[in-house]
């Protein structure tokens, strides 16, 4: 029989050792990236898997989120006669928060879970072990290309999501609701700062989320128990852990970038 305190202690220790393993994993992953200089073809294949195949969901989601922002923003601003600020509202919400965060969450569901399942199954079916026995390092051959591809894809997807979202907002506000198009863009341009907003929001946040999402996905797959339950658990775990890490990380980053303290 173990008491609740012992169980808590064990749980904390387990988490800490897992964190340590995750850090070593990341180090090995980064160390293996040099291999890709010799085999760029591997990177292209993975960019297709995580990037191109994620495009439809990103385009559609971005468009709808932007359109909803346009509608909601209009409904709220019209009471104050401030609909000319709609462009600012739509653009700042997307650039600072919704673009990077929603892209990372969608990526975790669409590509992160697939990465985990793929690596987990390769482990369960001894493909990784057989690769090792063929004197091929799975970190270089399998994990590094997936990591780098994801790391490149997430910021690009974030930019696409944000741009499409702003266009969606424009369509609803200007084409459908009759907000003045000149004011929409002019107010936006007056308020959205290149480095402070786009640099911090779209660029820095998406790079941090890219690291988190791909690191978690590959680590969960690599650590999965080589059984079907193990792989399905790891897949779920990837989506849950990435979502929490992205939302928590977003709060920290927002506090650092835009916060008052």
């Amino acid at each position, binding site marked *: 029989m173990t008491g609740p305190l012992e169980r808590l202690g064990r749980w904390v220790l387990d988490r800490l050792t897992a964190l340590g393993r995750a850090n070593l994993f990341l180090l090995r992953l980064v160390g293996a990236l040099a291999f890709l200089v010799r085999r760029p073809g591997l990177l292209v294949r993975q960019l297709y898997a995580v990037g191109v195949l994620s495009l439809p969901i990103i385009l559609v989601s971005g468009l709808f989120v932007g359109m909803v922002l346009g509608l909601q923003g209009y409904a709220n601003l019209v009471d104050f006669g401030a609909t000319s600020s709609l462009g600012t509202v739509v653009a700042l919400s997307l650039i600072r928060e919704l673009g990077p965060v929603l892209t990372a969450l969608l990526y975790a569901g669409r590509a992160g879970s697939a990465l985990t399942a793929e690596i987990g199954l*390769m482990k369960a*079916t*001894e493909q990784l*072990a*057989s690769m*090792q026995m*063929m*004197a*091929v390092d799975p970190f270089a051959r399998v994990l590094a290309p997936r990591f780098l591809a994801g790391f490149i894809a997430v910021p690009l997807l974030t930019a696409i999501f944000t741009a499409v979202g702003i266009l969606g907002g424009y369509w609803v506000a200007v084409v459908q609701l009759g907000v003045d198009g000149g004011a929409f863009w002019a107010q936006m341009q007056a308020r959205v700062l290149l480095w402070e907003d786009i640099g911090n929001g779209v660029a820095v946040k998406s790079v941090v989320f890219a690291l988190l999402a791909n690191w978690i996905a590959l680590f969960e797959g690599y650590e999965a128990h080589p059984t079907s339950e193990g792989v399905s658990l790891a897949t779920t775990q990837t989506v849950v852990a990435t979502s929490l890490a992205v939302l928590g990380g977003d709060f920290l980053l927002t506090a650092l970038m835009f916060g008052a303290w």
Partner: protein
Amino acid sequence: MLSSPLPADAAPPCSGRLVTVRGLSFRRGERVIFRDVDLDIPRGKVTAIMGPSGTGKTTLLRLLGGQLRPDAGLIEVDGLRVPELGRRELYQLRQRMGMLFQSGALFTDLSVFDNVAFPLREHTRLSEKLIRTLVLMKLEAVGLRGARALMPAELSGGMARRVALARAIALDPMMVLYDEPFAGQDPISMGVLTQLIRTLNDALCLTSVIVSHDVKETAAIADYLYLLSDGQIVEHGTPGELGRSASPWVDQFMHARPDGPMSFHYPAPPYETELLLREPA
């Protein structure tokens, strides 16, 4: 200590000793897998390591391939001490070893052809034309040249294992390790595989190490057998010698008797007491 079953003189590539294991101990957590194991694997022969399920036979192969490190003892392959090798040397050694995994472990995203070509493309700079020739030769050897365009999911279990075998010999290794090659095969593919292992061994001057619990098939092709139980070598010899062994344990294993020194029952309290025990309130 066990006496070496072979003279230790190094000589032409097809004779002598390739693998030497001395005093090998390995434990996984609390569980002792190997306790002071000695064994020798001669070059150019088919050596089988047999034992009941769960005796760590696969672990032994992983120790030979350097995927695991022993807690104590010596593992020497072709004069190299495997646990002491650095990564580069270990990878160089592994290029000269092929391993056939129990599941075949084919890469599911590559076709049969690309699976066999994989080690060639990773480790050589041969032209695609030459790779094609080599791959077709290896596939011909396992009788699956016609299946080269198929994906692994379209293969039967026996075919997958033969493709994996073609992949394992793609780089013309000096030694092939077979992990349970016969497990779960129908009689025909079992026959095909035994035949293949033997012919490949003799034609390519390979050293084959088979880990298995299928007594009949293994005894039919092995030149030398080791019987493993409870972390130790219980007996070794040629199949003929072991078939006539006086040891009751060897007799039970070799002739597949359900009960004997290896109890049919998992250790448990006496049956009567457990049945008569009242359910806890």
